[in-house]
């Protein structure tokens, strides 16, 4: 287990950023990707981080997930302060507590679908919870394709395997980076439905970065980022509301 820093408060917050600040470069070429972002993502919720390109939404996610480090401020996964962790412990944390779904190139081509799904647990040398695994595989509807290699699966199927992998270790939180970006709208909707289902029925926590209002409409809550700052927040968003908000933001 990674060493943890306990805040002393048992919360129902899965991930939290406090004054998260990230600069790239220095001097004249300095770019503020994140500018003092404070946000919480509750357990059992499906949250969307929205914003135009360059708004810092991906950076926020990367920092929350321990893939990138902050210039200033702190991020927590559960009660663990990521800034206190070594590279190795960050890796172990990702492996044990975080699930990922990327936009593309989500699977290891040399492994079968099932091996891809159980990869984080195999890496940790842990046996998967077979009952949970069966439920996950069943839920993504891939029971008959588990022995296929990624090249033998369609794009949608590949992404479903990726979601199943994120779910398989029953992580504290799942981060999804434009999970539907590379898919057509029908397949994309399928994946989003499935993610919604994972939150509602499997009790998962998902944070999704997207710029697609339709994708965001599947979430419980949408957070809007512009120029590295949170500018707005919306509960139970619909595609129209999000679209309007986005238009508004881009005019600022």
């Amino acid at each position, binding site marked *: 287990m990674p060493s943890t820093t306990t805040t002393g408060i048992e919360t129902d917050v899965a991930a939290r950023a406090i004054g998260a600040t990230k600069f790239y470069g220095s001097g004249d070429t300095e770019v503020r990707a994140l500018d003092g972002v404070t946000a919480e993502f509750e357990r059992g919720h499906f949250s969307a981080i929205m914003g135009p390109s360059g708004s810092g939404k991906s950076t926020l996610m990367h920092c929350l997930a321990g893939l990138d480090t902050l210039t200033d401020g702190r991020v927590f996964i559960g009660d663990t302060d990521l800034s206190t962790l070594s590279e190795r412990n960050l890796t*172990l944390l990702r492996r044990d507590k975080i699930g990922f779904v*990327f936009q593309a190139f989500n699977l290891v081509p*040399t492994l079968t679908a099932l091996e891809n799904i159980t990869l984080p647990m195999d*890496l940790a*040398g842990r046996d998967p919870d077979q009952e949970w695994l069966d439920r996950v595989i069943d839920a993504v509807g891939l029971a008959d394709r588990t022995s296929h290699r990624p090249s033998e699966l369609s794009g949608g199927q590949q992404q479903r395997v990726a979601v199943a992998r994120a779910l398989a270790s029953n992580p504290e939180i799942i981060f999804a980076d434009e999970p539907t970006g590379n898919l057509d709208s029908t397949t994309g909707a399928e994946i989003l439905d499935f993610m919604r289902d994972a939150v509602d029925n499997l009790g998962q926590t998902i944070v999704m970065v997207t710029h697609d209002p339709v994708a965001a409409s599947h979430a419980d809550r949408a957070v809007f980022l512009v120029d590295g700052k949170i500018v707005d927040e919306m509960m139970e968003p619909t595609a129209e509301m999000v679209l309007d908000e986005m238009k508004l933001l881009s005019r600022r």
Partner: protein
Amino acid sequence: MFKLTLRNLLDKKIRFVLTTSTVVIGVMFVVGVFVLTDSIRTSFDELAGDIEAGVDLTVRSPLDIGDELDRVAVPQDIAEIAETVPGVASVDGRVVARNTVISDGEGEPILPNGPPTLGFSWFPTQFFIIDGHQPEKPDQFATDATTASDNDLVVGDVYTVSGPTDQREFTLSGIFNFGDPEENKSIAGTTMAAFELTAAQDFLDKPDSFNELSVVVQAGADPAVVQEALDAAVGDDFEVVSQQIKIEETQSDFNAFISIFGNVLLAFALIAVFVSAFIINNTFQIILGQRVRELGLLRALGATGRQVSRSVLGEAAMVGVFSTVVGIFLGLGLARVLRSLLKAGGFSLPDGPIELQARTIIFAVAVGMGVTVLSSIAPARRARGISPMAALSDSVRLTKSGLGRRIKVGATMVALGWLLLGLGLFAGLGTQQLLLSVSSGGILIFIGTTVLSPAFATQISRILGWPIQRLFGVPGRLARENAARSPRRTSSTAGALMIGLALVSMAGVVGQSIKKTFVDTLDNSVQADYFVRSTAAGFDPTTGFPAEVEQLVNEVDDVDLVVGYHFGLNSISINGSTKNVFTTDFSAGTDHMDPDVVAGSITNGDPLGSILLNEDPAEDLFVGVGDTVVVQFPDGAVVGLEVAAIYADSAIFDNYVIDNALWNEHFNRPELLFLTASISGFSDDLPEEQQVALLASSAEAIRNVTDEFPTVSVENRVEFRQSQQAQLDSFLITITVFLTLALFIALIGIANTLALSVFERTREIGLLRAVGLTRRQLRRSVRWEAAIVSVFGAILGVGLGLAFGVAAAIAIPDTAVNTVAVPWGSLAIYVVVAAVAGLIAAIIPARRAARMNVLEAIATE
């Protein structure tokens, strides 16, 4: 288009370095070898001029066959006649002999490994005193500066010197530089001992005679005119040669030595180039795979297939140019390093300038450019076929030639290769055709196997990876699947290693077979109880020790029989072709050495009129016992010898044996190669205790005699066998070390391919790291992937090497190899070494992979 090609190269610096490194190494070796041999040759050529300077004409006896020192001596009266010839200013007789060994202050003989130990009469035009004075009394000698300084010889001290017939004590009167007053130019570790003329004639066994006469003509006289007059005066038994001829002879002697040495090095360099070609081809294929999308974009933007393929070729050409230039410079450095290594190894080479000839540059360009451009032809052709769609589609793959065709082409090449190899080994071709046939056969087999091996690379990799997966879990699984995922790449990476290991394994099989044959022969044929031989390390048939040792050993009480042996390399001529000759005492029969006589009898032989033949030459000459063979000796004598016996075992006796009496009549070399002794009353039937006691007392008695001679050592049968085997072993080790060079290049190839593969899988690695693969696990998976590929190559290589070795062992004449022995232990070690080497080669690529930034890796296009 050209600008793009150039940009491409500059953008991917690491890729560029990886690609060029192997070509650079190939070019470097070729240039290094040429420069080294050219430089040595030039220095030697200059030296030859220095040595012969000051002597206008030389009088000597003619020589058709045999060694320079086999010339019949020139008697005193010829020197007197020469002095009377008009135009002659001075005539100086000279004496030279081999096997004149100085012992240092500790009594240890100074025996260079290979180079000769020469004795001379003092000769002022070649020896330049730098300390003390020239030898003037019969008990004085002088030596060259290198020998003196290497062995701490001090002027005024007394040293033992061993000569052709006996050994004596001499006082070191002076130290000289050879060839040049400023700098000692004695060649390649040669030791020199110079004596006052009459002392030399006595000690070096040239009573009242000379090896040759050095003539200086009077100032103003035409050497050519004097030569003619001199020629007429000395008669038909002697010849007169000019300074120019002497210089050319000396040069060609040096050249023969340098050529052998250079050709061996060149062979290794070419092996290195061949292995490099494999790696370069592989690298271009991989790079092309990585650039498919980019090239597809070019096609989509309107580039023709021809333009695309030309850009690939252009990139190769630039890699070639760059590598050639860098390789030439590094080769110059390598030549210097090799020269210092040779010097450190005991070859004192002259310190000339490093010489870069036009021929070397042309060859370097041919190798550097040729290898890269040829290696890129196939990738360039495939690049032409890339469709513009490649830029747009998500998963791009190059079309690959079908497995069926691959198997057909590969199998044909392998079959043709074996055919050529078999032809070379068994059809009895001349040396040149044999080498050509065998080497082209080998090359075809190597390429064919590499073409063929992707057909089973995946399956074999999976099998080899199975235990690794069991041991290391996911990293092991990733290693296994990565090795199996692209059989072509695995095959060509393994191919480079395969070549190196095939050569090493082949040498192992042939060496083991030679050794087995030799040991069996020793067991069967050697009957003597003691062996007395020169202490010189390594087998050199020109070494020898004073002939008086034979007499002294014979005087030992326990000894009942002593037999001496001489060997003359290329010293007799039969039917116009030059042969080696070995000698023994016919009267001893098979008491000490039993060569397995199949017809006739050795003891029946007439010492002055008989010869013994091995059955192979007997068959070739169509002669049997009682028939006559006409033999020409170096002194010009042509003698008909009756065949007394024919024997089957040539491992010790070689092919032609004469009696010592006949040797002494025609050769001016009394020193012995070795001698054997047997103990009176000793027999294997005696009780063991008695045997041991008898051997102990007789050994002491014999050692009492030989201990007086620093250059001589005594061994009993067991020790003799061990020391002979040890010599073979050290020879085999030398060859293996040289071939390891090819392995080294193959390792660079593995590191290279792996680095490119890691680069290619950047995103995949990023993903794995994101979902929790630790750096350590990642490094482990890269390392084990390398190990799997290496072992795959090692198995192919050892398998091929085994087949080559067995074929060669069968083809080699029974004289050297009459049985096939396989060193299974060594072969197994080679495979293990390959695996370890693979792990080592992977260290850097694994580190690079582990250092990748996860985020950047995921974002990589």
